[in-house]
């Protein structure tokens, strides 16, 4: 019987996250054997499962093999830890896949049919037999810009005031308003469209053209969606303004209005700009509320107060559902432009809200925006 004497063994201290050649080989070996097993299972013994199912099964088999092999070497505790790490890392990487895929697909389908005339022509005189590059979506782009611009002009002042109310006042109404803002951010966008349709278009359309299907109504519906988002994000930014600044301003004898106007809002300006840009990015892509308000139209209609109007998401939605291939391709060209706009807005928001503390330390203090972008997702 041999008794191990730990004191005489020289053991290098092992860091928990260390990775040795042995570990790498185990990982690679498990991967290769998992692929082989699943290939045998699906390609040889049973019917196919499609590449997607194959990937899922391979991953499950890989985890099992990896667990068994690691447990053999290091015990079950380490094995469970490594398997968990593999699952978490793969899960996080897996998020990358659909997004890159989606972007790649829209680029691959949209770019070939996109011609400069897409930005200058509408669908006048375009028949189903014409190629996809005939005509354009300028009417949709103009519609989108007008509708989102108008929607911003309704929702920004109101949202800003509501956020100031939630954060800077001491009213007892703050709690109910906050609950309602949160609830409003959850209402489906199609319901916002239905609401505008029910309140303004149904009863008044017969008497006033302002209240028929047009861009103005669309902007109101979009404002219903933007309002809670803008309010919530601006509230978060305002909360990041240090209380010391407010107190200093009030201690100097300024009124609360002056404090908000000259201290709080300028300090939070960068954050608020990001909030607004992200709000725009969201509104630009909304389709559902427009079905009941702007309605869609194939020709240029620059007047938002009269007559149905198109918009980019609506253009995409309607064309992709048409039976003729050229219309579908035209829809994808629109989708590509829409995606460019959204990506540009997203990049702009990140650029405005970037962390500038590294570049210059003596700059005025700007609220950090990492938490703001979390808020945007609500």
């Amino acid at each position, binding site marked *: 019987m041999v008794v191990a004497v730990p004191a005489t063994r020289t053991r290098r201290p092992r860091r928990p996250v260390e990775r040795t050649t042995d570990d790498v080989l185990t990982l690679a070996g498990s991967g290769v054997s998992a692929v082989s097993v699943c290939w045998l299972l699906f390609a040889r013994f049973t019917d196919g*499962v*499609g590449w997607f*199912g194959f990937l*899922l099964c391979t991953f499950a088999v890989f985890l099992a093999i990896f667990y068994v092999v690691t447990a053999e070497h290091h015990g079950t*505790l*380490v094995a*469970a*830890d490594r398997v*968990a*790490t593999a699952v*978490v890392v793969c*899960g*996080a990487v897996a*998020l*990358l896949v659909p*997004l890159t895929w*989606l972007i790649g*697909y829209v680029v691959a389908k949209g770019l070939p049919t996109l011609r400069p005339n897409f930005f200058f022509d509408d669908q006048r005189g375009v028949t189903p037999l014409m190629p996809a590059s005939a005509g354009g979506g300028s009417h949709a782009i103009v519609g989108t810009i007008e509708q989102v611009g108008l929607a911003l002009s309704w929702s920004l002042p*109101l949202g800003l005031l*509501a956020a100031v*109310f939630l954060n800077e*006042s001491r*009213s007892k*109404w*703050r709690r109910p*308003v906050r609950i309602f803002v*949160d*609830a*409003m951010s*959850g*209402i*489906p*966008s199609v*319901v916002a469209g239905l*609401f505008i349709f*029910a*309140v303004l278009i*149904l009863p008044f359309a017969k008497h006033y053209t302002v209240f028929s299907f047009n861009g103005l109504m669309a902007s109101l519906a979009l404002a219903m969606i933007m*309002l809670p988002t803008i*309010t919530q994000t601006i509230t978060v930014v305002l909360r990041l303004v240090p209380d010391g600044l407010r107190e200093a301003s009030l201690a100097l004898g300024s*009124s609360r*209005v002056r404090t908000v106007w000259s201290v709080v809002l300028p300090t939070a300006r960068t954050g608020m700009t990001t909030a607004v840009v*992200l709000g725009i*990015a969201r509104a*630009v*892509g909304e*389709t559902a509320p427009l*079905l009941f308000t702007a309605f869609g139209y194939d020709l240029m209609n620059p007047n938002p107060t009269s007559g149905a109007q198109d918009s980019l*998401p609506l253009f*995409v*939605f309607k064309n992709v559902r048409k039976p003729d291939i050229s219309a579908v391709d035209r829809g994808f060209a629109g*989708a590509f432009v*829409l*995606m460019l706009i*959204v990506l540009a807005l*997203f990049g702009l928001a990140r650029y405005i809200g970037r962390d500038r503390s590294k570049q210059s330390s003596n700059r005025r203090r700007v609220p950090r925006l990492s938490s703001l*972008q*979390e808020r945007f*997702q*609500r």
Partner: protein
Amino acid sequence: MAAERTPRFVTEEPAQVDRWFDRITLAAGVVVLVLLTLVGLFLLLRSRDALSVTGVWEFLTRAEWRTDVKPARIGVLGLVMGTVLVAFTAVAIAVPFGVLAALFITEYSSTRSRRYLTALVDLLAAVPSVLFGIWGFRFLSAQIEPLSRWISRHFSWIPIFATGKHPRFSGSIFIAGIVVSLMALPIVASVVREVFAQTPPGEKEAAFALGATRWGMIRLVVLPFGRGGIIGGAMLGLGRALGETIAVALILPQVAQVVFHILENGGATVSGFIANRAGSDDFTTSGLMAAGLVLFFLTLGTNMVASVVVSHSRSGAGVEL
């Protein structure tokens, strides 16, 4: 002279301009309150035509939509069932991935990869739903079909995976659920991440000091601490998934029947159905208003319960929803 020596009387009375400030901001806050109430009120008002013909109970329990017969037979049961099935499928996919992403961001990643993954999740939230829709409808659907076929062949003894005689696997609730899960994922991931980030570092260090591996620490400290947040995040994701419109309108065929076979072509959701029937006659529109009202209360209820769950859990007390 003497008057100047007496101390100035300090008052808490707000200045005139501040009183106006209070009034104006209060008005803005109340507008939001009123708007939401008006939404419910007007949908109810406009849905009266349809509800008076069919009756409220029949409307809620009937699974067909026929306006060609007299009296019209319309009901939302099939739509609501479809909505719930799509939303649950979406959440069943989004929650595991959301939790994994949150774990990666809070526990595993370096600072740099954390930034990239956070940006990625944000970007996922910014992609318009119509793009998800055309991608799912034109591309992903065909990729998922073999998997659906395989599941239906081998697991059809589980009721929801059963299919009819000659099933078509495109345009199924399963595929719609996968696409919607991508849209529910950002909100789930962000809520869960926020909750995980609040795990007391003392408890984490205690677990490590007792010799726990990283997974052991997560299992014993982070996950139990974040349980309320995970449930709440899942419900918020559910709320988002219930209201998802355009992608579902593109993928599902939108027939107002009860469909249990999630792998098979068929099914409808309230929002998708409404979107597809935009611009119909007055009576149909009134029915759509009633359906919209049902959806409105469905999402409102889910979101309310979710925020209560999160704020009443230990981890979510400081999380603003």
